[in-house]
């Protein structure tokens, strides 16, 4: 039996220090290869199986979008900027187009607004299904996750008919959309898909949301109260589960949302279970919104702005000015700030993803005192998306 002091001496001589905080603590690198963290890493200082201190370490997905966007013409930036949010790629397209539309000052036609709203809602439903898949995998209920992935396939087939690609649609441009709805058959297929997913929601309830194991694992974990959430810049379902009623679709309405009728869920607990239940209710409400949109039907008319300047797309100039636009995505409040100085390329584009507030400071404070098995559950209940932080 070797004494501990001799082991420590040997470790130091060979450069294998583990930098303990105290006699019994060690450092754990919860790194980017782990399936639970999705390209993000956390440095944890642990005592036994409890976390004492956590440091978030983003930067693995930095691709330099803000500088690259200054070198390309206005319309081309859509093919570049939509790669910022991977589960819901329609959201960065829409905020960039809304900001540029506001600088130019033209009026987007009604048919294009209907199509943009439908596409945003479909992206929300598919992102919530993706979130259910992630949550089930982390809790251990792999069955429900595979169901969610299968239902998401139907939505991706619909997107393929509409825009030409399954995940990265490159469909919304400043001034409208690129193509028209293919046929009336597409609208009927969308209605069938919405009814199908609605009929399968009780299955998810039985397995994930009304499961005794879920309650035992998620209740009382990762609690944040109202004052903390507002001070740290938290938005989206995380803020609604902490007790503040703030939804961009109602507070700062855009597109066709003033004419739609839906409810906003607010709970007061602020723990991981409340966040999961709020998202489950919003999935139901999104399906209800899609039904209302399909009943309204698309208005007739052009699907993009007719403007003679658009004949020469590489040299299309935008007048000087700046604008801010934001949209409610499933992760939070996604915003874009665009500055133009009158040339054919943007002067400055900045995209604000919601995870820059949740994934760094909030995570570091919520993880103190959690067990090692709770770390992925807290990450998923905050719905952290690392490409938003790194851009």
């Amino acid at each position: 039996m070797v004494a501990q002091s001799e082991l420590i001496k040997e470790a130091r001589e060979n450069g294998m220090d583990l930098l303990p905080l105290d006699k019994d603590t060690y450092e754990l690198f919860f790194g980017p290869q782990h399936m639970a963290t999705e390209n993000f890493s956390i440095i944890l200082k642990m005592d036994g199986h409890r976390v004492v201190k956590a440091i978030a370490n983003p930067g693995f997905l930095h691709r330099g979008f803000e500088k690259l966007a200054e070198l390309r013409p206005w319309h081309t930036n859509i093919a570049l900027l939509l790669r910022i949010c991977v589960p819901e790629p329609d959201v960065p397209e829409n905020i960039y187009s809304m900001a540029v539309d506001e600088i130019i000052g033209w009026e987007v036609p009604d048919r294009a607004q209907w199509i943009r709203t439908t596409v945003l809602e479909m992206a929300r439903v598919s992102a919530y299904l993706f979130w259910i898949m992630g949550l089930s995998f982390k809790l251990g209920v792999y069955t429900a996750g595979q169901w969610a992935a299968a239902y998401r396939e139907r939505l991706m087939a619909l997107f393929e008919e509409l825009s030409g690609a399954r995940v990265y649609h490159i469909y919304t441009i400043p001034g409208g959309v690129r193509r028209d709805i293919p046929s009336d058959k597409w609208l009927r297929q969308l209605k069938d898909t919405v009814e199908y997913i609605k009929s399968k929601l009780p299955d998810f309830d039985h397995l994930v949301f009304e499961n005794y194991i879920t309650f035992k694992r998620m209740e009382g974990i990762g609690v944040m109260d109202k004052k903390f959430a507002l001070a740290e810049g938290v938005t989206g379902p995380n803020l609604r589960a902490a007790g503040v009623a703030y939804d961009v679709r109602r507070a700062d309405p855009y597109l066709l949302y003033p004419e739609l009728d839906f409810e906003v869920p607010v709970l007061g607990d602020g723990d991981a279970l409340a966040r999961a239940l709020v998202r489950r209710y919003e999935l139901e409400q999104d399906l209800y919104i899609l039904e209302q949109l399909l009943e309204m039907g698309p208005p007739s008319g052009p699907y993009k702005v007719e403007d003679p300047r658009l004949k020469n797309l590489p040299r299309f100039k935008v007048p000087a000015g700046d604008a801010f636009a934001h949209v409610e995505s499933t992760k939070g409040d996604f915003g874009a700030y665009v500055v133009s100085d009158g040339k054919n390329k943007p002067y400055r584009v900045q995209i604000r993803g919601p995870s820059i507030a949740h994934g760094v400071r909030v995570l570091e404070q919520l993880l103190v005192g959690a067990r090692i098995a709770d770390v992925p559950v807290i990450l998923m209940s905050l719905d952290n998306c690392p490409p938003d932080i790194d851009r």
Partner: protein
Amino acid sequence: MADGEKEGGGMTMKEQAIVDRILKKAPYAEGNVRRERRIEFKVPMERIRDFLTLLKENGFELMLQITPVDWPKDEEIELIYQIWSITHGVHTMVRTRIPRDLEKAKIPTIKDIYPAAETYERDAHDFFGIYFEGNWKMEMPWILDDTEQDVYPLRKDFDMLQYVKKKYKILDRFDENKDNYVI
């Protein structure tokens, strides 16, 4: 993107009332209304902390982002603090200007007023070189690697294509005619 009944200046009365109330308490600032739910203020660099404390007491709770914009012609960097107010339902932009030189680009931090600003200030420091005094996380590496710490890539005098050609050596495959390319 407004629809519904619009009576000219009637839709922005609430925003105008908020701007007037804030400007009465802070006479060193200027403010105006852009459109409904968008207002902006302009504040000199020394009074930024007092102004933001005043805003926080008047119901502007969420700090969304701090955006630096580089204007090399005026030799200044413009900092824009973007704040959303849940009680009033408006978005406001607070603008200040600081000198552009690397030695002189310093401004006091606001992380005791809005704690979320700590992360946004680290972001601005890494990409633009602005130093926020009082934020002790400035020296922690944020996104860029160690080899790129002093490069400050988002400034306008950083030539990205030359840097990439030097570092990776594979960019130009043909001797292209560069007249009409916009990229």
